């Protein structure tokens, strides 16, 4: 299930790079001696300790799926949040946190899986899907991979350049508030027609991984079931509200 054991052990992590992804999102690469890798789609608990001993823990999806002792998380600032504003705006290279994991054995993609895959991400819900795209590319998998990524505007996309350059995955961009100039699809929420267009384009009945805010995932999963996808092959991960 997990690639490494001892998930109840907190490991010291050092920030080795920090990259602003969007106005509200930032990628942090952590060096964690003893991490030992994770499956694509797993997450990690991150613990921060204040000088007086106060602690806060949050769970973040992992954007990387490497075998080594480094992992990448990508954090979107939650307004009024306690931890995400610190990770997006304040933490610096060289600073330390603690991590525990990798966690979760359900919302994962393994390179030995050969069936067609449809990834549907909303906003920062791209993070675990990015790990899958990277694992797919790194393994040389020939499983057909399709990503539908819904973002408010081009500036709000995580990993936009990497996704545009990625081989082995076909990306459909959905802009909900503002599309690039000349974009054929008007800005608007991901709709049944968008998913039906994929069907019409010959995307086979795939395994589906959908991740994003609750309302987004709820709507995507409902729509996929309505247009004939097997509910048993749709895996979801939802966030928001906390």
């Amino acid at each position: 299930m997990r690639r490494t054991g001892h998930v109840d052990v907190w490991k010291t992590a050092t920030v080795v790079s920090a990259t602003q992804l969007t106005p509200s999102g930032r990628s942090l690469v952590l060096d964690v001696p003893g991490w030992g890798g994770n499956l694509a789609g797993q997450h990690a608990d991150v613990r921060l300790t204040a000088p007086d001993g106060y602690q806060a823990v949050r769970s973040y999806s992992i954007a990387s799926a490497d075998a080594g002792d480094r992992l990448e998380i990508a954090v979107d600032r939650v307004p009024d949040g306690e931890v995400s504003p610190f990770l997006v705006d304040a933490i610096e290279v060289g600073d330390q946190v603690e991590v525990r994991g990798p966690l979760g054995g359900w919302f994962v993609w393994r390179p030995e899986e050969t069936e067609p895959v449809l990834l549907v991400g909303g906003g920062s819900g791209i993070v675990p899907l990015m790990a899958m795209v990277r694992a797919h590319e790194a393994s040389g998998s020939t499983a057909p991979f399709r990503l539908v990524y819904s973002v408010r505007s081009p500036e709000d996309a995580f990993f936009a350049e990497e996704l545009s350059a990625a081989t082995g995955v076909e990306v459909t961009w959905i802009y909900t508030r503002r599309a690039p100039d000349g974009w054929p699809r008007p800005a608007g929420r991901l709709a049944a027609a968008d998913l039906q267009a994929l069907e019409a384009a010959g995307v086979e009945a795939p395994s589906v991984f959908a991740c994003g805010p609750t309302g987004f995932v709820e709507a995507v999963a409902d729509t996929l079931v309505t247009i004939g996808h097997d509910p048993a092959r749709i895996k979801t991960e939802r966030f928001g509200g906390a």
Partner: protein
Amino acid sequence: MAVFTRGFGGRAREQDDRLPPGQFLTEDFPVLSAGPTPRIDTDEWEFQIRTEAGETHRWDWDALQALQQDDITRDIHCVTRWTKLGTSWQGVSLDTLFADVESSYDFVMAHSYGGYTTNIPLEDLLDGKAWIATGFNGEPLEAEHGGPARLLIPHLYFWKSAKWVRGLVMQQDDEPGFWEQNGYHAYGDPWLEQRYS
């Protein structure tokens, strides 16, 4: 000894003693599910308890509604770290449903529409500790929160409170259910932080 994070002061500083370790308060009601939301019409809904003797106790929607309905106010705790205080539910006590059930087994596997399962010791369902909930805040329970009916076991992490519940099967042994097979703790006591296996 924990590693200090430079510059982190914390902000919320929630000191409520109703908050189990590692949890934070939320006013929202987040939704976490492994897949699409099943939509079960109450006309088709059925709940069963099955024993080792092969006996099946069944209730359709009307039969459930005809039973004693409890108002329940409890704090709930999700393993993803949110805690919601003083939530208000309506439902039928498992004591009521188990009144005529004969079983010598100590464990239960809860089964849901959609295929979800979760394991619970029988003693955690009885003596006023658990319900089949059909209402939230005086309204019918919404499908995304497990409606028309879900388990409600407030003293355990909330993944044990199976949404869209359709039946309980008595088990001789404590076997892992869905999330328990996927890395989560077999029992899930929030006060002991039994999150992961």
